[in-house]
Every structure is written in structure tokens, then in C-alpha cells.
């Protein structure tokens, strides 16, 4: 199975709040789990990524939590800002496959 399931489809958060987006995967061969951020009219941009040998990775206000046994990973955006309003995609791939499987995306709106 190649599927990656992402939730929620949309999310509204107040400025300063925490945004949490979840993804679940099925293929245990995946070894790279990135999150992409896409603004309207632009292509997705790599935001942060994790490999299954660690359970958490933090870069600034963005944190990935990874649960290998549950085959789930999530993106946490701390102190959410209106400028974070965008569509976020999780993805999964394995080294040298040249193919990433994407979730369907989450539209985040951060209200001022």
C-alpha cells in the first residue's frame, strides 16, 4: 500500500495558538517523512522532514512528532501566525525511489 492519510482537511486557529496536523501511512518501507507548505499560486516548499530513527524533530516553531509503531506522524506549529496560513502536505518516500506519496493536504487559517 502506498497511501498516506492526512487530517484534518481544514483547520482554523487563533493567532498564538498551536496548529496540529496528522498523517498516517501504511508502507513500512518509507524512510523519509517531509512536510511541505504551499501558498496560493506557488509550488509546495519543503518545511521540515524526519527519518524514522528519531521520534521528534524541531526547527523553530515547527515540530514533527513521529510514532513508528503507530505508523503516524504529525506537524505541530507553535505560536501560529497569520503568515502561516497556507496548505500543508505531509508526504512519505523511501531513499532512491524517486517517488513521494502525498497526503491530500490541510488548509490552515490563522486568525489575527
Amino acid at each position: 500500500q502506498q497511501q498516506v492519510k492526512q487530517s484534518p482537511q481544514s483547520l482554523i486557529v487563533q493567532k498564538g495558538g498551536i496548529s496540529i496536523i496528522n498523517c498516517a501511512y501504511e508502507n513500512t518501507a518509507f524512510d523519509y517523512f517531509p512536510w511541505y507548505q504551499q501558498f496560493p499560486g506557488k509550488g509546495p516548499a519543503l518545511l521540515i522532514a524526519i527519518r524514522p530513527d528519531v521520534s521528534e524533530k524541531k526547527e523553530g516553531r515547527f515540530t514533527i512528532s513521529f510514532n513508528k509503531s503507530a505508523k503516524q506522524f504529525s506537524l505541530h506549529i507553535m505560536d501560529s501566525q497569520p503568515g502561516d496560513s497556507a496548505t500543508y502536505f505531509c508526504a512519505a518516500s523511501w531513499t532512491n525511489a524517486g517517488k513521494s506519496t502525498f497526503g491530500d493536504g490541510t488548509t490552515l487559517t490563522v486568525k489575527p
Partner: protein
Amino acid sequence: EAGVTQSPTHLIKTRGQQATLRCSPISGHTSVYWYQQALGLGLQFLLWYDEGEERNRGNFPPRFSGRQFPNYSSELNVNALELEDSALYLCASSPVGQNEKLFFGSGTQLSVL
């Protein structure tokens, strides 16, 4: 450093026609990927080219094809266009040896009437 560039930005075709989309990767990147992003949906993998060869292909019919040139630029051809081919087509490139890290262009919006 210039990012991934795609042309044209928008393309309007009618059913049955052919469309050609072009992509220039980031300098030094040798792999190019094509993804289809239909409205409101996630990205679907189309094709992967590396060093001029097709390395992997997604679950799309043969009328979706492409090639990679010696300068690593690429083009995607879609023959016998159908209405459901209307989508944003994204090109990405990756650093050598890191083909899991994708750097995307802004895409070509293809509309089939």
C-alpha cells in the same frame, strides 16, 4: 540561486489536443520529477527522470510522457487531452543523491476545454 522554473504558467487547450510543459531544474540538480495536482487534491506522482533516463512512473496512462535533455531540463507531454487532465502540473528537482528532497516550481495550470 534560481529555483525550479516552469513554462508556461497557464495553458489552455481543447479536448484531443496535445500539451507540452517545460521545466528547468535548480542548477546542479540532475533529477526532475513531475506531479499532477488536481483541484483540492494532493499531489500525484507522474514521472521521474535522472541523467536523461526515465527512472520511475506513476499510475498514469501512456499518453502522459516526457523526456529529459542533456542540460537536465525536462518536458512533459500530454497527448489526446481529456477534460480530467485539467490540473496544476508541478515540476520538482532534487540534489544529487538526495532524491527524497523535492524543490518545486510554481507549476503550469493546464485547462482543457
